[in-house]
Every structure is written in structure tokens, then in C-alpha cells.
């Protein structure tokens, strides 16, 4: 579904991503973990078109998508849940969701999407006329996810969905991601919370200083001595 080949990217003259090759198969959940500054968020920025790669290629459904603008990427079916949610804080919950189905394709299915969202997130239905900025941290992240789903993506990318949230809330959010996964979405997650993220993964990549250092399926990944020692603490 998503195929990245030898992609590199710069911030100005500074090279932040080197020769990244990564695959997300249809219906698969791929997790990329790594420390701060490894380039995880940058990777998602490049895929969503916010940053143009300097080399390599990105394919989605066999169609080349690198160099496309962010709004085109969303229309093609790749949506991101940005780090920290990035809601429109002064708009209501309902308006945030409505903004989520902005593209022509998703607007046609707005009613249906909204029904689906409200049945899987009843709390958002109860709060629909509330200002988004007044929600709690967990609810905000939930709304951010819901807003992303409103654009009817095929591939959902999560940027550090757990950052800055209480452990209990994080557990709930991962449950939510699991549910989204079971609905058949393809998922690309970047996470610092390695232990929790790995549980969801079909495939995992380890990223460090702008390179992919290791990859394998869930078992290989957990068994790898390096990862065991450095990230899982066992």
C-alpha cells in the first residue's frame, strides 16, 4: 500500500533523513520507534507532503505521491493524526469533525462518517457543541483521531499519540488504535512508548539519527538483543 524507497530529506542544508525504505502493506500496522530527534516526525511530515523529500520515491497504491501537496495527499487517502492533536481550539467539537471531512471525496460521505464516529466515540457526541479547547487531554487526542478518520483515509498515521498524556489515558488510546486497526485501516505509527506500541505492530522499524537501523516483524523485533536492552529494558 505505502512504499518508500531510498528517501532522504533536509531541513535547509541539514540532512535529517537518510535513505529511508519502508513498507506498509494493506491492513497492516507498522510502528516506527526511536529516540528523540531520530527523525520520526519528519518521516511523517514528508509522507504527508509538508516537507518535500530530496531523494528517493514514495508510492501509495502504486501511484507516485512524493512531491504532492498536503491537500492532495489527504485526498488520495493518507491522513495524519498530528502530534498533540492540533485541534482547532476555538471551534466546537462538531465543527472540528466537519473540518475533518473537507475534501470533496469525504464531504460526500459526511453524514455517514459522522454517524460512524459518534457511534464509536459516544463521548464526542455528548460534547459536540462544546469548544474543542475545553476538552481534557485524552478527549482532545480522541477528537484529533476522529477528525482524521472523518477524511476517510485508507492509511492513518499517528504521530506520538501518547505524548504528554497520563498513563491511564495512554492505555485507553492504544485500545482505541487497536479498534481502528480491527476496522481494516492500514496504520503507520511513530512512537516513543516502545513497549505499548510494539504490542500493536505487525511490523516494526527502529529509527536513529535519521536512518532506519533495524526492522522486522513483531517477534524478531522483540527478540533482538539490542532492542531488548536499549528500549524494552529487559
Amino acid at each position: 500500500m505505502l512504499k518508500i524507497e531510498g528517501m532522504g530529506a533536509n531541513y535547509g542544508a541539514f540532512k535529517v533523513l537518510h535513505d529511508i525504505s519502508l513498507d506498509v502493506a494493506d491492513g497492516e500496522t507498522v510502528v516506527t520507534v526511536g529516540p528523540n530527534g531520530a527523525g520520526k516526525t519528519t518521516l511523517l511530515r514528508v509522507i504527508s507532503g509538508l516537507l518535500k523529500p530530496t531523494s528517493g520515491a514514495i508510492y501509495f497504491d502504486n501511484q507516485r505521491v512524493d512531491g504532492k501537496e498536503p491537500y492532495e495527499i489527504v485526498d488520495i487517502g493518507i491522513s495524519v493524526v498530528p502530534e498533540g492533536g492540533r485541534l482547532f481550539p476555538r471551534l466546537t467539537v462538531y465543527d472540528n469533525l466537519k473540518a475533518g471531512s473537507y475534501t470533496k471525496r469525504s464531504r460526500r460521505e459526511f453524514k455517514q462518517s459522522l454517524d460512524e464516529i459518534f457511534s464509536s466515540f459516544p463521548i464526542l457526541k455528548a460534547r459536540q457543541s462544546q469548544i474543542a479547547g475545553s476538552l481534557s487531554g485524552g478527549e482532545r487526542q480522541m477528537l484529533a483521531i476522529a477528525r482524521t478518520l472523518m477524511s476517510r483515509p485508507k492509511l492513518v498515521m499517528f504521530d506520538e499519540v501518547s505524548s504528554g498524556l497520563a498513563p491511564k489515558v495512554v492505555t485507553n488510546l492504544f485500545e482505541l488504535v487497536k479498534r481502528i486497526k480491527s476496522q481494516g485501516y492500514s496504520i503507520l505509527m511513530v512512537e516513543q512508548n516502545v513497549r505499548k506500541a510494539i504490542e500493536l505492530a505487525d511490523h516494526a522499524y527502529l529509527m536513529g539519527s535519521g536512518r532506519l537501523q533495524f526492522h522486522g516483524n513483531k517477534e524478531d523485533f522483540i527478540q533482538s538483543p539490542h532492542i531488548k536492552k536499549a528500549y524494552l529494558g529487559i
Partner: protein
Amino acid sequence: MKRLANLPTGILLFILLFVIIFPFAGLPLYFTHTIILIFIWGAVTTAWSYMGRFWMISLCHGAWVGIAAYITVLLFNFYHLSPWVGMWLGLLAVAIAAGVIGYACFRFGLVGHYFAVTTLVVTELVALVIIAFRDITEGRLGITVKPLGTAPLYFQFESKVPFYFMALGLLLLSLYIWRKIDQSKMQKALTAIEEDEVAAASIGINVVRNKTTVAVVSAVIAGMGGVVYAQYIMYLNPVTTIAIGASLAYVFMAIVGGMFTLWGPLIGAIIITGLQEYIRITFGTVLMGWAWVGYGFIIVVMIIFLPKGLYGTLIETLHKRRMQKAARESATP
């Protein structure tokens, strides 16, 4: 927000009737003159607020006014091309210039102060270019439209009445477009962009196109204001119509009136133009320059204490009071 725009129809009709009868009421011409200026500045300021209300602070609306006006006047003076034709070339130039500058700014994510400063440079640049080509434009001295007396085909009238109605028409057009934008999908997209540009892009909003479109529309309406102004006053000066002072005047008018409401910018234009004229007439020769100090002081106070402008604050207060009253009534059945 929508509710705020709906003044009662009765009042609107009354105002409209008053406005139509006004130039024929036999009042001193000076009043008509002031009102024409208010209409023109009101139209330009309303156009400015198409962008301003989404926090795109343009400091180059003087340039749009000036480019359209200068091109129209120069084509007439040199080639005897009727301003009715020339103005379209002027407006086209404005549209292209605003499109190029808007696209460049928005493509590379110049927002907030950076955008304001960039547009400030544009304004000064346009003024300096006009000053530099003084063989053609007569530089700082300003250019005078060759007078033909009353020549409707050449957009020249000795009476103020035609200008009065043209300026009124332009004002209504500008207000109409404000409403149209307010009710459009673009308004929602721009609100989202204003709140968080990255988030807006990540839900599929074409950030650059929405912003550039509104910038071009705003610039073209401002350009129309420039054309009507030039034909009415028959004189243009790069310093007083284009440079920073002129460009800032629109910002002040919008801030004073309130840039988030339909009528705010117009009310700002009424207050500032009225104030300027009043101060100029009353103190003009006695306290040269002090009028501007007072003017600046008022602006600073307004920005600090009434950021939503006079009209915006008034409407908000009325709305709040009504809500409280409704709450009280529902509490005591």
C-alpha cells in the same frame, strides 16, 4: 457571527433611503465630499478586512489602490485611453501583483508579523518605483489627471453626484463580497488555517490557494477604490496614496471599527475620516501636526482596550446582555 450582520430590515431601508436622498438635500458640498471619501475608504477597508479578519495583516493595500489608480491615470494622460477601459488593465495588474506576492508569501509559510513586514516592503517598493520614474509619473509632486470638464465617456464629472453613487456602489459591492465570503466554504477553510495552518493542511485544505484567492479579491476591490478616488480627486501622490502612512490608514480604520464584523470596517472609516476632517478643519492651522499625535494616541488606546473595535465591542456587549436576560427569564418561569 451571522446574526451580527443582520441589522433590522427597517433600519437598513431607512439608511438606504437617507443615503440616496442625501446628495440632493442641498447641504454644503463639503458634506457630500466627506461622504464620498468615507464610501471609498469604507470599501477599501472592508476589502482589507477580508484578509485582516483571518489575521493576514496586509500593509500594502495602499499599493493596490495606487497601482490601479496610477495605471489608469497614466494610460489616460499618455494614450488618451478612457479610464473605463484603462481601469481593467490597472485591476488586472493589481490582481497579478497580489497573486504573485500572495502566492510567494503563503507558499513559503510567511504568516503573522513576517507577512505584515513583507507587505510593508511591497508598499514602500511600489511608492519608490513611482517616485523613481518621475519623467513619467511626476514623482513626489504627484500626477494630475488631464481635465476634460464633464466627459462621462472618460470617467470625468464636474458634479459630485455621479462619484457619490459610484462610490456608494463600490461600497455595497465590497460589503456584498464580505458577506459572500463569510457564508462560503472558504470562510471555514480560512478560519481553520488561521487557527492552525499545519492542522488545516493535514485535513486536506489547500492552504496556499485559499489564502491567495482571498488576497487577490481583496486587492482588486482596493484597486477599484483607487480608480474611483483618482477620477474623483483628479490627483495622485505616491506618498499620500501608497506609502506606509496610507497603507496603515486602512488597518487603523478596520481596527477602530472592528474587523470581525460586516459593518465594522465601514464604521471605522466613518470615524477616522470624520475625525481627520474635523481635526483638520478645527485645529488644522493652529496646532499643526498635533492632530496626528492625538490620532495615534486614540489608536493605541483602542488596540489595548477595544481589540474588537467600537462596533464589534458594542455588538458583543449587546449580545451578552441579551443572553443574560434570556438566561434570567428562563431561570424564573
